[in-house]
């Protein structure tokens, strides 16, 4: 069967993997996360520009690891036994004891820093995977209608941000026409000004277009007062509930129950507000077995990680002192194997035409 999977399913799946990756610096597990993400994206992305942008997230991940390594060499606390790179150390006064400026870089320290970078990079890659698998615009369709002002801002941001790269490229090229080398710190203003103006113009044009096409229109009668009361009470309840949860001395009734009631009131407020903005959806994305399966697979990987954190936290780290081989925890790996199942078990997305749209014959 050929159809798009519900965007929310892909996002939940990807967020579960991101959350799992945040708990480990074990290189085997991180590599497994990356492998699962890449495999599923390659199998299930469509040919849209969003799908093509996955590469950029991979590049961003590599940059993050490199920056983390450079920072470690410059200001990180060095430790270990195996010297890697001799760097002279600057002596700092005692009040700056937490920072080590320069100093010999050891393998263990560099490895630790690199793996921390890799952990962040993996989480970013998970977000990139969600973007590639389900365009954020399709996700915004299910955004609560009551919050349409925020919705407009999100749509504008999601649309205009990817065009920034193109703008920067264009203006940087134009700088050379005025006789300046392309990349120079001094030229920052000369690139930033036109790009910002361009972006602002585009954002306004898009917002105007949405307005002109009826985004956020509501009929005369609105039950604004009820909506306001529900939302206000809900927010109040949530605040008190969170306070109760965090403050161990307050009575138990103030905690979880209040939070739940508050959240329910918030949802009711959103529902009531959304009802006044009539909107329909052309081709509602169906929610069926593949969606449940995808979420379950993501959840399985996350639960496996959570269980391992409780039972065997050492297996999720990298033994650095003394340096050793990383553990091979069976449970998380099994969970990740499950998380890869959507690569084959979900419907194939419709093929979006490649770069060039077919040239039409004269009508």
């Amino acid at each position: 069967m050929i159809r798009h999977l519900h965007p929310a399913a892909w996002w939940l799946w990807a967020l579960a993997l991101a959350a799992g990756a945040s708990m480990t610096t074990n290189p085997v597990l991180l590599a497994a996360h990356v492998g699962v993400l890449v495999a599923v994206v390659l199998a299930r992305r469509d040919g849209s520009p969003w799908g093509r942008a996955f590469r950029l997230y991979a590049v961003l991940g590599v940059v993050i690891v490199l920056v983390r390594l450079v920072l470690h060499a410059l200001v990180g606390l060095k430790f270990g036994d195996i010297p890697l790179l001799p760097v002279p150390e600057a002596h700092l006064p005692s009040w700056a004891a937490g920072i080590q400026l320069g100093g010999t870089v050891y393998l263990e320290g560099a490895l630790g820093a690199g793996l921390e970078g890799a952990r962040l990079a993996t989480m970013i890659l998970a977000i990139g995977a969600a973007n590639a698998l389900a365009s954020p615009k399709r996700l915004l369709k299910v955004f609560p209608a009551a919050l349409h002002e925020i919705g407009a801002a999100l749509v504008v941001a999601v649309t205009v941000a990817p065009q920034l790269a193109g703008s920067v490229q264009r203006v940087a090229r134009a700088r050379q026409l005025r006789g300046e080398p392309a990349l120079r710190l001094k030229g920052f203003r000369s690139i930033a000004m036109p790009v910002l103006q361009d972006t602002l113009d585009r954002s306004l044009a898009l917002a105007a277009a949405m307005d002109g096409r009826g985004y956020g229109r509501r009929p005369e009668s609105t039950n604004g007062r009820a909506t306001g009361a529900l939302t206000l009470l809900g927010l109040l309840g949530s605040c008190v509930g969170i306070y109760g949860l965090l403050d161990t001395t307050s009575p138990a009734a103030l905690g979880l129950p209040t939070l739940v009631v508050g959240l329910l009131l918030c949802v009711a407020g959103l529902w009531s507000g959304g009802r006044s903005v009539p909107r329909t959806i052309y081709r509602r994305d169906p929610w069926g077995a593949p969606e449940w399966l995808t979420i379950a697979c993501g959840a399985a990987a996350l639960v496996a990680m959570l269980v391992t954190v409780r039972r065997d936290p050492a297996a999720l780290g990298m033994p650095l002192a003394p340096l050793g081989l990383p553990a091979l925890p069976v449970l998380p790996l099994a969970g990740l194997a499950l998380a890869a199942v959507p690569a084959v078990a979900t419907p194939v997305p419709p093929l979006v035409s490649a770069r060039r749209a077919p040239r039409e014959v004269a009508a």
Partner: protein
Amino acid sequence: MTAYDPVISLSHVTIHYPDAAEAALRDVDLEIEEGELVLVIGRTGSGKSTLLGTLNGHVPHFTGGRLSGRVRVLGRDTATHRPRDLADVIGVVGQDPLAGFVTDTVEEELAYGMEQLALPPATMRKRVEETLDLLGIADLRAAPLRDLSGGQQQRVAIGSVLAAHPRILVLDEPTSALDPTGAEEVLAALTRLVHDLGVTVVVAEHRLERVVQYADRVVEVVDGTVRDGIPSAIFETASVAPPVLDLGRYAGWSPLPVTIRDARRAAAPLRARLGDQGTSASRGRSNQQTSLGVHISLTSASRGSSASPGVRARGVRVDYGGVRAVADVDLDLPAGRVTALMGRNGAGKSSLLWALHGTGTRTAGRVSLADGRDPAGLKPGVRRGAIGLVPQTATDLLYLDTVAAECRQADTESSRDSGTCARLLEELAPGIPGDRHPRDLSEGQKLALVLAVQLTAGPQVLLLDEPTRGLDYPAKARLADTLRGLADHGHTVVVSTHDVEFVAESADEVVVMAEGEVVAQGPTAEIVASSPAFAPQVAKILAPVPLLTVAQVRAALAERAAPRETV
């Protein structure tokens, strides 16, 4: 509301923007009736866009400013109805379709407006199919919007507002970014809407030659005031007019013919008068302009320099990813001449210009200037002195707060005497205050500023990428004069453009590109007159007499000392 009520009525409408000394629109009274195609004309900055903006409440709800008077759209007052409240009756299509797209694919974009109007899904499915067929874009339904050509994007934009079945469609320069064929597609779709569905269409356009024949009524905006009437009446005195009407006004035809067909009928005597001249001109085609007494100095100058081309390109190739944008182009661009680069959107014109300039990608091939240097091998600072380029978005070059600061910066970066750029600017566009912000200038003034900045370095070669976008006729005539003057001083000038009338007025030679290759090159008259897409209006009216512009007709008649009243 009775059947005779106008669909749009403006009464005593005045618009004041904050911080503006004068009102953008002054005491405008206008009524537009059901099923009309209304053309809004006027010079840039005259208030056309403001007038269109008031129709759906975009002005002042979105832009700010103060509205006095009353604008009613099908009985709804825009003072109390925001644009979103009018979305079911009036659809607006902007100049840059891509800037208004909210979703990712054609089908979703068509449905977007209907989703906001809360139409039932079954209705939406039906209307999406109808709209796809109506605009001839059915095979593009799943295509990503960014991958479409300009003409296709504009048709999707029109379809996306049309699917909601508005009774009024407002378009602000819908064809300004399109090549002649893309513009034809869009205009054909529009006329079909008016004739088959009775949609009321209000369209503003600079390239009048493309739309004037479709208009039922013309509204002229002059400095914020408005007058309207049937096309032949308004164009008797309008400040802007397409060549067909210019010729009619010059020849004194009455009533003024608006279409090529009518003008051809009226032009029979004129053709006969010019006839013998034409045949003698067509015998010696290469020096035909000389025989007509036009640009004699130019032609003689260029003959002398044609032995040494200003730019010589051999085997230039540009690849982007898997796409070959420019395929092994050999080109000699003569010094002392204006060469026009034409071709569809995406034919590789921009890529070629950037590759010739040396800043853009060049995968293979050689480019040499008159002195044998390859611009790609020069440092940007030195290159600037040898070859200049005005990019498509000319304002990318500007980043300072005032015109004067931009000029000073240009003097410094090209190491010229201070005041060089300001002097050039004064020549190109007199009277621009130095303390003005560059973004507040009109399109023509912005272009003049960028041109002055680029000319400050004194390059022998000047490349311009689509400079006529957004320029009105007087601004275009001024640009044509400027380019002419540069060529007369021995510069090599290359202009990429879709504007056939501008080519007829300004270019000596035309290079036509398709799919990255040069498919034709030669003198303007030879190339454009024979092509149905590229022929200027005067050529169509006077064929087989090979004259391209009203100025050439005037010169040809003056040579025969024919009194114009007797034409």
